[in-house]
């Protein structure tokens, strides 16, 4: 067994464990924290595949940015009645059927992926330079659409979080 396989096994099982822990945790804060470890594991997988830029971006955007907000939000709002998640049997049923269908689909697809390719491509992944050039030439329009989208989200968030003036009250 090569080192790659050993590392992949370790990281993949860590991801699987933390992903299961997200689902099976009854406490919502713990759930959010396990999701954090799932995302870190996915970024480690990117590093293992040689896609360092994607891995670092995953860490900066999801782990360092989004998950901080999620963890903060959950920590500060998890009061008595929201702290424990209660799941009804119907929800188990629907979610279980959906999840197993998705699982079967992914497994069958991944078995077909390796057909006809005996070895991984010899060329390394493009580094940050070619990626940047690609963003500013061939994929400029999607790149700009995403940035405008993010701007809209920012303005929307600022609008939602503004100091609201209550009708009839003088306090601001």
């Amino acid at each position, binding site marked *: 067994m*090569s*080192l*790659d396989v050993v590392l992949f096994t370790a990281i993949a099982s860590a991801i699987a464990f933390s992903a299961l822990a997200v689902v099976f945790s009854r406490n919502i*804060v*713990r759930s959010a*924290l396990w999701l*954090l470890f799932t995302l*870190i594991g996915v*970024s480690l997988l990117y590093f293992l595949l*040689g896609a*360092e*830029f994607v*891995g*670092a*971006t995953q*860490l*900066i955007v999801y*782990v*360092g*940015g989004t998950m*901080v907000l999620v*963890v*903060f939000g959950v*920590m500060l709002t998890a009061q008595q009645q929201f702290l424990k998640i209660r799941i009804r049997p119907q929800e188990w049923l629907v979610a279980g059927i959906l999840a197993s269908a998705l699982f079967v689909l992914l497994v069958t697809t991944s078995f077909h992926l390796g057909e006809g390719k005996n070895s991984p491509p*010899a*060329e*390394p992944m493009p*580094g*940050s*330079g*070619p990626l940047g050039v690609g963003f500013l030439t061939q994929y400029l329009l999607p790149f700009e659409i995403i940035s405008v989208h993010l701007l809209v989200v920012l303005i929307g968030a600022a609008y939602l979080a503004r100091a609201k003036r209550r009708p009839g009250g003088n306090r*601001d």
Partner: protein
Amino acid sequence: MTDFDFTYAVILMVVVFAAIMGSVAYLTFAERKISAWVQDRIGPNRVGPWGLLQVAADGLKFFFKEDIIPKHVDRVFYFLAPGIGVATALLAFSIVPFGPSTPAPGPVGVTAEKPLDAAIAQHEADVKSYHEHTIFALAPGLDIGILFAFAIGSLVVYGIILGGWSSNSKYSLLGSLRSSAQIISYEIPLGMSVLGVFLFAGSVNLEKILDYQIHHGWFILYQPLGFLLFIVSVYAECNRLPFDLPEAEQELVGGFHTEYGSMKLGLLLMVDYIHMITTSFFMAIIFFGGWHFPGLSNIDGIGGMVVKFLILGAKVFFFLMLYMIVRWTIPRFKFDQLMALAWQVMIPLAMVNLVSVMIVKEYQLTPWILTVTSIVTFLAAAVISTREKLTVIQRPVNAAHSA
């Protein structure tokens, strides 16, 4: 990318780990000695000659203390928090070229006389010779370079969040909120301050940035404002004074680590010192030319290697001592001042700096213009901020209470 020497990697990792841990231990000693010197005391002088074994006594004390686990903590995350802190801090060091280095090979162009196969073969030969030359970094040639350090650095905040939440105590939770807000805020000027350097060097790889400085002069000459912003943000990221609100023992009842004891507390405190070492390397390499020193970098052979090590070591040592002296010189900020500094002063300054670098690059002007614009920007910011302070004082007092 799997053709590396496993044994050598393991040996290098062990050596680097031991070196970092040893330096961390003696940094705590240096901190106590320097604080004593600044405050006109003697400092630790009982254990060993000149108190040099005080470090061992401190470490053993941490290990042999009773390992108290409060009943109300969340056990899994309570134990994970110090581990995450130390692991991420150590991981960030893996990209630092801590010795003599050569720049990583760039892409090889495909032309008519050089078809794809030949280009690939040449690139592979380049990479091979590079890997043989570069032995003083754990992850040499990582294309994203310092971006990796920033990505890993954004994980450090989780050690604090987890520690504060899992302790299940109000002091810890408030402390962790305060500290993580600080660290997240200062990540932005930290990243923006070095963007100008990246624009000049054309790479985020530390070895290439270093190589650029050997040919064009150190970046401190062209980016003094960038360096100032970088060093301030780094002090905030390391929780050093004047930004040590996470550990303000005197008036804020500690912080996220209030409920920790014995070696777990030791690990949490170690994180800051590991960061200090890593960031001192960053400052020396990005802004002060790494192992380069005029007239001393052309020596070949083992002697040259030793000289380069010594130069880099001296620069890093200087920044570490600067950390210590600043700690006992500048008093602590209040929390609102801390946040205002990051969002109202440092981010706009970093943007101005970045725009001036862009203009210089676009019109191919001499980079010395940036030295002037940096100083002018800094002075303008100083004038504006002192004037604003006057208006704050003149505001009517009852305006503050109506909010």
